């Protein structure tokens, strides 16, 4: 497509607590290049216009999950969002919703980092086997059961899109539950009962009302909303089983 524009306007959220207690928007006019992503425009601002602009990025190829921001109101990876698709602008860039802002476009992800280990996102074995026992082989079907959930890059777009997380900060959240399911559904794992303590509580899966935005915005097609609904079935079955066997724990 032929574009007549030479430049594009960025309206960038700025928060510099050491100099200005209130956040503000700063406008930058950057050159438009057809193959530029929003991240390229931000890098241009930082390299050529204002080196104090703060934001996270690393791989530039949708793998590291660092460069998630709110662009024109939508949570996206800025390295995977073409400026061409947002013309004629201006393009508004905010930090991800739901996280306290440390500076400019950098959010404090400490809440997620504290929640993630609570769902024990690692393989738990009943008994560790010696190394010379060899690999634990899986069939393609067994890998397929969890593979989708292993694609999560912890980019936090799902948390930013989730209206429940914004209102109910104790909600353990979409990515953490999807990652718990990544291990629950792994045939090598025996830790589902240990994860249930966290997942089946109110602030586990039950806070979710299946808005579904987490799956809509996920850049890796992980479908956290599906993971949560599947776990609700698991937790409900467990609850009914516990009624039949009241003495059972775990």
């Amino acid at each position: 497509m032929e574009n007549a524009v030479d430049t594009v306007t960025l309206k960038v959220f700025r928060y510099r607590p050491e100099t200005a207690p209130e956040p503000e928007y700063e406008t930058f006019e950057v050159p438009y290049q057809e193959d530029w992503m929003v991240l390229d425009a931000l890098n241009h601002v930082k390299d050529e216009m204002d080196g104090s602009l703060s934001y996270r990025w690393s791989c530039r190829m949708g793998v590291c999950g660092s460069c998630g921001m709110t662009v024109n109101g939508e949570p996206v990876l800025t390295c995977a969002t073409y400026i061409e698709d947002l013309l004629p602008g201006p393009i508004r860039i905010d930090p991800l919703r739901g996280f306290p802002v440390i500076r400019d476009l950098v959010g404090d992800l400490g809440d997620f980092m504290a929640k993630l280990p609570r769902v024990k996102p690692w393989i738990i074995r009943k008994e560790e086997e010696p190394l010379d026992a060899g690999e634990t082989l899986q069939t393609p079907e067994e890998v397929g059961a969890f593979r989708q959930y292993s694609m999560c890059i912890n980019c936090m777009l799902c948390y930013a899109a989730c209206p429940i997380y914004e209102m109910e900060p104790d909600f353990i959240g979409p990515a953490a539950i999807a990652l718990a399911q990544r291990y629950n559904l792994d045939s090598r794992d025996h830790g589902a009962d240990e994860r249930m303590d966290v997942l089946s509580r109110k602030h586990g899966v039950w806070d979710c009302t299946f808005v579904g935005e987490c799956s809509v915005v996920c850049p890796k097609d992980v479908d956290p909303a599906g993971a949560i609904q599947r776990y609700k079935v698991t937790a409900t079955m467990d609850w009914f089983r516990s009624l039949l066997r009241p003495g059972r724990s775990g």
Partner: protein
Amino acid sequence: MALKPPREPLVWALFSAGGMVAALVLPALAGILWIAAPLGLLGPLDHEGLRLLAVHPVVRIGMGLLLPLFFFHWAHRFRHTLHDGLQLYHLSRFIALVTYGVALGLSLGALWILWSLG
């Protein structure tokens, strides 16, 4: 496990079952009652014919199972619409009591009507 919420799995199960049966049954019911019947595809439908249909044991049992699920599906959805949609967190218990209470009342009413159809 003491920390599990005692009611959420139960009301979610009713909500979930209600949503599924509604999705399966309502299109068929709408097709029968709103399309086939008015077009005369089912032959003449009179009050007596419908009454005989309603008192059939299979229909009674089926409706007795379906209607409470529909009501509890509504109740759960409406509870979350009020609680999360309108952010009435301070009325959490009251909303749950009213929505599930209405569903329970409607269910008992429906069961009573099905039972008393002569």
